[in-house]
């Protein structure tokens, strides 16, 4: 394992002494060397297309965005054949804000098709590899893999039911899913709009905080983006003890199917906060066990609606030689979508029909209400909650596609999505098999400041986040 501290801030600082485009070129070289092993980038900025960097707090910092985030300068396909080679005429607000600060987008990142999965296996571009072990999966988003392997220091990734956080846990990266509404969804290809968010991934919480401070904030293009709430977080980075901080640990989230090594590691990590003055508390999260199922049901219903527009008529894949309107719809959509997506769309359609609506969809909405209340109750006596992030370390790639597996993989991230709360994913150790173990810290609505403060404090006392994988066959940049 190798150590490196190429954070965004130091990256931005170094750039002032170098040619402004140098960091971008370094990133492109790293991508060139590492891509053959990891297969994380459906699109990379051509070396002769590096834009002139004027200035800004993030001048010259290279970043990547996942393939659900619209960019007018690169195809945005949501890793689906349905949108193959489609380039949108607009760029997502979050990307625009980073660009306004001088950062340069060097690539689009792989993911499961429309984020429906937890391994990238369903991507129309093919599977991405975990940089710690190329036979294993990187999680539902390639962002963590790209960051941890040194290809880019920063990434924007979508998180609906947990892909961003789960992939951080599996790859040893740091990531933040913001409070619902804190970051604009304008330009994010929607799947489940009541849960979709754009989050940030980097090699440290400190870097994440810096990115978040640029992308967060009300956007008139997104009616669900919050007004007047600040998540300005860089101020939260001052250390100085955590006395008074109450961290809740819901027993219900541990045990059961959770890999025991993972559970133990996370529990041990809590002691780091204790040593800094925080107190650990038991707390209950009643209904947690139903959250993943409710999240899945709601996500399927909303995705069925959000993906209904893909019919090949205005853009995207259009089945050739359809002889009727009906055939055009059924063929384009049957051939354009992969199996996992179709399964969810069908389920989503079914759950909203008169016959099933009250039994499943209404129930799921009720569970959502209950979970929200459970979290609110827990936050009445805790400032943060510590939960697992993934059920274990990264599984091997190429396994049998099991619809229930994604369900299980999202067990700890789904409840947070349902409640619209902010959460940080950060590495807290390594398993005997050499793979990273991650944990999830959950905050109150618009409580990113406390979240960042505690997560950063953990990273000042540990160096799991500084570990870098050695990728077999790759010469380091």
């Amino acid at each position, binding site marked *: 394992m190798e150590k490196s501290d190429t954070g965004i801030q130091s990256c931005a600082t170094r750039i002032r002494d170098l040619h402004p485009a140098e960091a971008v070129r370094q990133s492109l070289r790293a991508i060139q060397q590492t891509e053959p092993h990891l297969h994380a980038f459906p699109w990379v900025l051509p070396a002769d297309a590096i834009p002139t960097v004027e200035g800004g707090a993030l001048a010259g910092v290279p970043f990547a965005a996942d393939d659900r985030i619209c960019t007018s300068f690169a195809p945005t396909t949501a890793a689906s054949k349905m949108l193959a080679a489609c380039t949108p005429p607009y760029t997502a607000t979050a990307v625009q804000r980073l660009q306004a600060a001088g950062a340069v987008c060097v690539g689009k990142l792989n993911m499961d098709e429309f984020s429906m999965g937890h391994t990238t296996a369903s991507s129309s571009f093919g599977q991405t590899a975990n940089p710690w072990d190329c036979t294993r999966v990187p999680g539902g988003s390639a962002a963590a893999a790209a960051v941890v392997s040194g290809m880019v220091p920063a990434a924007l990734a979508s998180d609906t039911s947990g892909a961003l956080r789960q992939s951080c846990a599996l790859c040893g990266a740091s990531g933040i899913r913001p409070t619902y509404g804190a970051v604009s*969804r*304008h330009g994010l290809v929607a799947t489940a709009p009541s849960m979709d968010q754009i989050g940030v991934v980097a090699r440290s919480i400190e870097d994440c905080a810096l990115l978040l401070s640029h992308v967060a904030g009300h956007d008139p293009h997104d*009616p669900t983006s919050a007004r007047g709430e600040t998540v300005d977080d860089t101020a939260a980075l001052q250390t100085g003890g955590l006395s008074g901080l109450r961290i809740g640990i819901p027993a219900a989230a541990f045990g059961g199917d959770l890999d025991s090594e993972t559970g133990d590691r996370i529990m041990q990590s809590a002691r780091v906060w204790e040593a800094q003055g925080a107190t650990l508390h038991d707390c209950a999260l009643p209904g947690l066990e139903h959250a993943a199922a409710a999240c899945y049901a709601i996500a399927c219903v909303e995705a069925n609606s959000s993906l209904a527009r893909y019919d090949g008529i*205005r853009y995207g894949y259009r089945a050739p030689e359809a002889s009727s*309107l009906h055939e055009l719809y059924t063929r384009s959509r049957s051939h354009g979508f992969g199996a996992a997506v179709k399964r969810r769309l069908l389920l989503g359609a079914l759950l909203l029909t008169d016959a099933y609506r009250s039994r499943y969809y209404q129930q799921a909405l009720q569970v959502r209400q209950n979970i929200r209340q459970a979290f609110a109750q827990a936050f009445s006596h805790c400032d943060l909650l510590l939960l697992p992030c993934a059920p274990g370390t990264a599984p091997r790639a190429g396994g049998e596609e099991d619809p229930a597996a994604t369900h299980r993989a999202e067990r700890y991230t789904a409840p947070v999505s349902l409640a619209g709360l902010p959460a940080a994913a950060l590495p807290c150790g390594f398993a005997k098999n050499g793979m990273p173990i991650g944990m999830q810290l959950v905050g109150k609505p618009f409580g990113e400041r406390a979240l960042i403060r505690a997560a950063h404090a953990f990273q000042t006392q540990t160096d799991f986040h500084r570990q870098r994988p050695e990728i077999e066959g790759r010469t380091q940049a």
Partner: protein
Amino acid sequence: MTWEMVCGLEVHAELATRSKLFCACATAFGAAPNTQTCPVCLGMPGTLPRLNRRAVELALRTGLALSCSVTQPSLFERKQYFYPDTPKAYQTSQFAAPLCRDGALVFTQNGVRQQVRIHDIHLEEDAGKLFHPPAQPCTQIDYNRSGVPLIEVVTEPDLRSPEEAVAFLEALRETLLFLGVSDGKMQEGSMRADVNVSLRPRGSDTLYPRVEMKNISSFKAVQRAIAFEAARQTEILQSGGKIHPETRRWDDAAGTSTAMRAKGSAHDYRYFPDPDLPPLKVASAWLEEIRAQTPELAAAKRSRYQAELGLSAYDAAMLTTAPQIAALFEQALPLCPDAKELSNLILGDVLRLMNESGTPADRLRLSPADLASVARLILAGSINRATAQQVLDRVFLDGIDPETYVRENGLAMVDDEAAVQQAVDDVLRQHPQSVADYRAGKTKALRFLVGQTMKRMQGRANPKTVNQLLLKALEALL
């Protein structure tokens, strides 16, 4: 068994906003295809709706004018179905919590006061338009109309005859026009009506299965469609059959309705609240502002014109055929307080000019100041009616200033008695036969002689003076 017809209407009206319901695209009618579109109204991935405040205001204005209560909060929902004119494969509409509820439209039909209850008024976006070019094996889609804001006014099934339905629609249209909410042009599609018709035994008060009819594009067609449907259902019921709920397509040219192709019996639209649009709460201060700024309705104007200005019911009705006509009248009034004179000019000349030139009310460009000017010239005795018509023609067609025009063209009435006398004498000398006819009792001859005198005076004589002197001269000859 006598059957009673029960009918309800669902009326869609395009709101008179400059931009669409969820984006800034223009709503103007008649642009080249797909030139008023953007990623939002084309349903491109990653786009989000931004609610048009003015659309909400106009919808509220309508609801308040129809005595509805405002639902707080109201919800936007996705009405889901696949059709090429619907780019997101759902229409953003309202369902469980519509903006306005439980109102009524009061109107008169043949002098009798009627009231039709309004179930709800809700906001929704319009779809694009499909064209089926005759020579090509394809369908073309124009998305200019996609996203245009609509209100849907849903009535309770309170209508009992085709005539009543038409009277309701006319009253609703008039209301929307005078509120400035919509231009109500059925032929342009800015107002559309679907009808729901069912029959029940007279005396019963349950509701029987109803048939919906679509594709009705004029008020006359509404009347025909309802009458046809009532007859069709009567025949089925009288022969012992049953009516099943369905949607039928009205074909006005053929005068029949046909079952619509598998668009589904009771299509399940799988409504659910749109997660992209937060629940809509309307601030009470804003509601009060809207209430206070609501324009006066036509019926109120008609009462006021009669009660306060002494105009006849006929005049009041003619002046309120369009809000622009009423506005012209009301804005000219302060400049020329003779309501009757203004009314005469409008009814006699302005409406005629509009007809002759094919100018619809919403393109009327006659300034109230100019109209008042002409009226004042008549009242001051400066010009006679024939001249006034001529002047008004020029004002209407060329936008000239009346007083300048009269002055420059010497159109002012000549009150020179001597000149008139001279003309009278000349005319009487030249038309002895007419004089004889007059003496024989033919009053038509007098009109002819007046006409001839006016001609001699190049139309500028004061008709009163002409009449006076002519009669005097004729008397003298007797």
